[in-house]
C-alpha cells in the first residue's frame, strides 16, 4: 500500500525536522545543555545545591550566576517553557537533583489547577535530546501509552501556519536565541511588548496536581532532598490585585498541605509593570537580579509559610504581610 509508505516517509521527515531544524526545539536543546553543564559544575565544586524549576517565569527570574557570586549560593535554574507541562519540567529538574540538594518547585499556578495534559513541545524536546524518560509519569496509575507520545511529534496546523507566516514576513523563526541564555540557566530578552496583566486561576488544586505533589514530596523525602513550592513572580493588573491576592492565598494554603511554600511576602504577585519584558511572566534583567537577591534570603533561611499563617491571612486580608514592600534598589 503506497500511501502507508508515504505516511511513514512523511513522518520520518517531520522527525528529522524536529531533530535538527526546528528553531524552538533547537533553542531549548541549547537551554537544556546550558543548565545541565551548570548543574554538573556545581556538583563538582559544592556538596549540595538548590534546583529551581518551572516554566519560563522561573527561567527569566533567577540569575543563578549572581546567586553564586554575590551570595555564595549554588543554584541551578532549570526553568524552561510552561508549555512543556509540569510532568516533563519536573522530571527534567529531578534528573539533576542529588541527595542532600534542595528542590524549589516554581511551576506556574495554572499547571496545578488544571488536569495534566500531554505536551507536544515536551515530546518534541524529549525526542530531540534523546530523553524519552522525561515523558514518563511515575506518579500516575494510568500513564499515557507510548503511541500517544509519538502522536505528539506531529507538527500541526498552527505550527505550519506560524512558521510559514514568519518565513514570509522575514521574521525570526523563534522569538529567543542562544544569546538570551546565560550561565546558571538564566534567560533574558531584549524584546518588549505590550500585554495585559493576569492573576492566578480561581480553581483549587486539580486531582492530578494533588497526586503529583504527594508523589514528589515522598520521592524527595526518600532521596533526602528538601522540597518547597515558590509561586513564580508574575504581573497583575493593580485593579485586580486584591482579588488575585485572595485567590493566590487560597491556592498556596492548599499547596502547603502537600509541600511547604517559601515565604515570598508578595505571594508571587507584582504590580510593577516596568519589571516585565515581553509577557506578564518574564522579568527584565534588572528585576530578575533584584528578585534573585530576595530569593537568596528565602533559600538560605528556608523560610516557609506555616499553613496557619496562610489561613490567618485568608481571613484577614489587611495583615502586615499584605503591604507591598518597596522593591530593593536595582543593582548591576
Amino acid at each position, binding site marked *: *500500500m*503506497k*500511501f*502507508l509508505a*508515504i*505516511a511513514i516517509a*512523511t*513522518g520520518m521527515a*517531520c522527525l528529522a525536522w524536529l531533530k535538527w531544524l526546528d528553531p524552538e526545539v533547537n533553542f531549548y536543546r541549547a537551554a537544556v545543555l546550558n543548565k545541565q553543564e551548570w548543574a554538573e559544575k556545581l556538583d563538582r565544586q559544592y556538596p549540595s545545591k538548590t534546583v529551581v524549576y518551572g516554566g519560563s517565569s522561573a527561567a527569566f527570574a533567577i540569575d543563578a550566576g549572581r546567586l553564586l557570586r554575590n551570595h555564595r549560593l549554588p543554584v541551578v535554574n532549570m526553568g524552561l517553557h510552561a508549555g512543556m507541562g509540569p510532568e516533563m519540567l519536573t522530571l527534567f529538574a529531578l534528573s539533576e537533583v542529588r541527595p542532600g540538594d534542595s528542590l524549589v518547585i516554581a511551576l506556574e499556578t495554572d499547571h496545578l489547577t488544571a488536569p495534566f*495534559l*500531554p505536551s*507536544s513541545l515536551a*515530546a518534541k524536546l524529549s525526542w530531540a535530546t534523546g530523553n524519552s524518560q522525561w515523558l514518563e509519569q511515575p506518579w500516575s496509575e494510568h500513564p499515557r*501509552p507510548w*503511541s*500517544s507520545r*509519538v*502522536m*505528539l*511529534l*506531529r*507538527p*500541526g*496546523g*498552527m505550527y*505550519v*501556519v*506560524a512558521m510559514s*507566516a514568519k518565513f514570509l514576513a522575514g521574521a525570526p523563526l523563534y522569538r529567543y536565541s542562544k544569546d538570551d541564555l546565560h550561565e546558571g540557566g538564566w534567560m533574558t530578552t531584549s524584546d518588549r511588548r505590550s500585554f495585559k496583566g493576569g492573576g492566578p486561576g480561581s480553581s483549587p488544586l486539580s486531582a492530578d496536581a494533588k497526586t503529583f505533589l504527594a508523589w514528589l514530596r515522598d520521592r524527595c523525602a526518600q532521596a533526602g532532598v528538601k522540597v518547597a513550592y515558590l509561586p513564580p513572580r508574575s504581573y497583575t493588573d493593580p485593579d485586580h490585585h486584591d482579588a488575585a491576592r485572595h485567590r493566590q492565598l487560597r491556592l498556596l494554603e492548599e499547596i502547603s498541605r502537600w509541600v511547604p511554600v517559601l515565604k515570598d511576602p508578595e505571594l508571587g504577585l507584582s504590580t510593577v509593570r516596568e519589571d516585565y519584558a515581553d509577557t506578564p511572566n518574564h522579568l527584565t534583567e534588572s528585576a530578575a537580579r533584584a528578585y534573585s537577591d530576595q530569593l537568596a534570603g528565602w533559600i538560605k533561611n528556608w523560610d516557609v509559610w506555616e499553613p496557619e499563617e496562610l489561613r490567618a491571612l485568608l481571613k484577614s486580608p489587611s495583615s502586615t504581610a499584605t503591604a507591598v514592600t518597596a522593591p530593593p534598589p536595582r543593582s548591576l
Partner: protein
Amino acid sequence: MNFADFRFWQLCFYGLGTILVLKLLFSKAGPAFDKSLLLLLGLFLLYVASPESCLVFILISIGSYLGIRWLVHREKQHQKRYLFLLIPLQLLPLVYYKYGYFLSHDVLGLPLLQPLVDFGDPSTDGWASSLKNLIIPAGISFYTFQKIAFVLDTLAFKKPVPTFLDYFNFSGFFPQVIAGPIERRHDLLPQIEQFRFRWSAPAIDEGATWIVLGLFFKLVLADNFAIAFDGVAQLANSHLNVYHVWAANLLFGLRIYYDFAGYSLIALGLARCLGIRLTLNFASPYCATSCTEFWRRWHITLSQWFRDYLYIPSGGGRVRWWAFNIFTVFILSGIWHGAGWNFVLWGALHGLFLVVNRLWGKRLALPAVAGWFITMTVCFLAWLCFYEMDTTRLWQKLALIFTPGEYRWSALTEAVTLWDATDLAFSLCFVGLAGVVLCLEWWSIRWKKEPYALLWNRSLLVILTVILSPGINNGFIYFAF
C-alpha cells in the same frame, strides 16, 4: 471507540490478528464461528473504550432481543398494543441516562432524584449532582434508535426474528455502534447473516480510501477547527462582537461537519474492509442549495429515521398540519442531540427554516448560488444554539445577530484588532483549506455524481494528515450525543 486514537488501531490490529490465527487453527468452522469472533471483537473494543458502556449495551441488547421475540409471538391484533409498551421500555435507558437531570430539574422542577444506577462521581451536593453527573453510555442514542427501527421493521414487514448472534452483531457492529450510521434491518442484517471473515483486496482498498479520507476530515480539518473555535469563542464571550459570534458559528459548523463526517467515513471504511457496506451518512451537506436538500445530506440515517418512523406515520407533508409535523420532528431531533433548551431551540429553528422553505422555496425560485448562501447563513446561525449552552449568553448573541446596528464597520475593525494575529491567520488558512475541500465536494457531486469522489487522493491526504493534524487528540464531538 475513538478512531482518532492510535490505541484503537493497535487493538483492532491485535484483534484481527488473533482472529486470523484462530481462523487458521479452526479453518473448518462454520459461519457461526466467524460471527462469534466478530461479536467478541466488537465487545472487546467497546469494553476497552468504556466497561460501563459495554455492560449497558449488553443488557439493553438482551432486553430488546427478548422483547422482540416475545412480541412477534403475540397475536397480531395485540402486537400494536404491546409495541406501545416495548418502545418506551427501549427508550427508558436513553431517557434515564441522557435526560434524567434535564427533565427532572429543568423541565419539571422536581425535587432532587436519587439515581438508580450511577457511574458518575457523586459530589457533596447530594442527589442532584449525582443525576447530573451520570456518565452517558457511549453510543446509546444511536443504538437505541437502531433497535427501535429494527422492532418496527420486523413487525411492519413481517420479518422473522434473527438468531441471537445475528441480532447482537446487527446491534453492536463495532464500526457503527458508537456514533452511527443508524442502520436499518434490510440494509445491515442480510450482510451480517452472510458474514465471513474474508480477505478481499478490492474491499480493503476501497475501505482504506474511506478511512484515509475520514482521518483527514477529522485530524486535519475538525481538530484544527476545534483549536480555532476555542480561541474565537472566548473572544465572543468576553467582547460580544457580532463578527466574533459569526466567526465562532462558522468555525463550529465546519468543525462539527468534518468531525462527524470524518467518523462516519472511517466507520464506512472499516466496515468495507470487513466486507460490509454501511450507509453513507453525509453527502456534502454544505453544498446544499436549500434547507430541504441540507437535511437530505446531513446525518442522513437520523433524518431518514425521523422521516420514516415519525414524520410519515403522522401524515407527513400531505396533511393540513404538516408544519406542526415538521416542527415536532425537528424539536425531537434537537432533543436527541442533547438535553438542553439550546438544543430544543436549534431543532425549532431548523423546523422553521424547513417550513419557510416549503412555503416559499419554489415560489421564489432563487438561483442556486442565492439558495446556497441563504441555506448556509441559516444553518450556521443555528449552530450558535448548538454550541452555546449558557442560555443567557445565547440570547445575548442572538440579539447581537439580529441587531443591524451591530454590523457597523468599527465593530469589524475592532473584531480584527482583538483577534490574535496568529490565531486569525490560522483560522483563515483552514477556512481556506475547507473552502477548497468544499469546492471539490461540490464538483464531485456535479461531475462524478458521487460524493467525495474528487477527494480520493490518498497520498496527498496522508501527507497533509501527518503534517497538519495537531499533536493533541480531540475526541469525536458526536460522542457527546
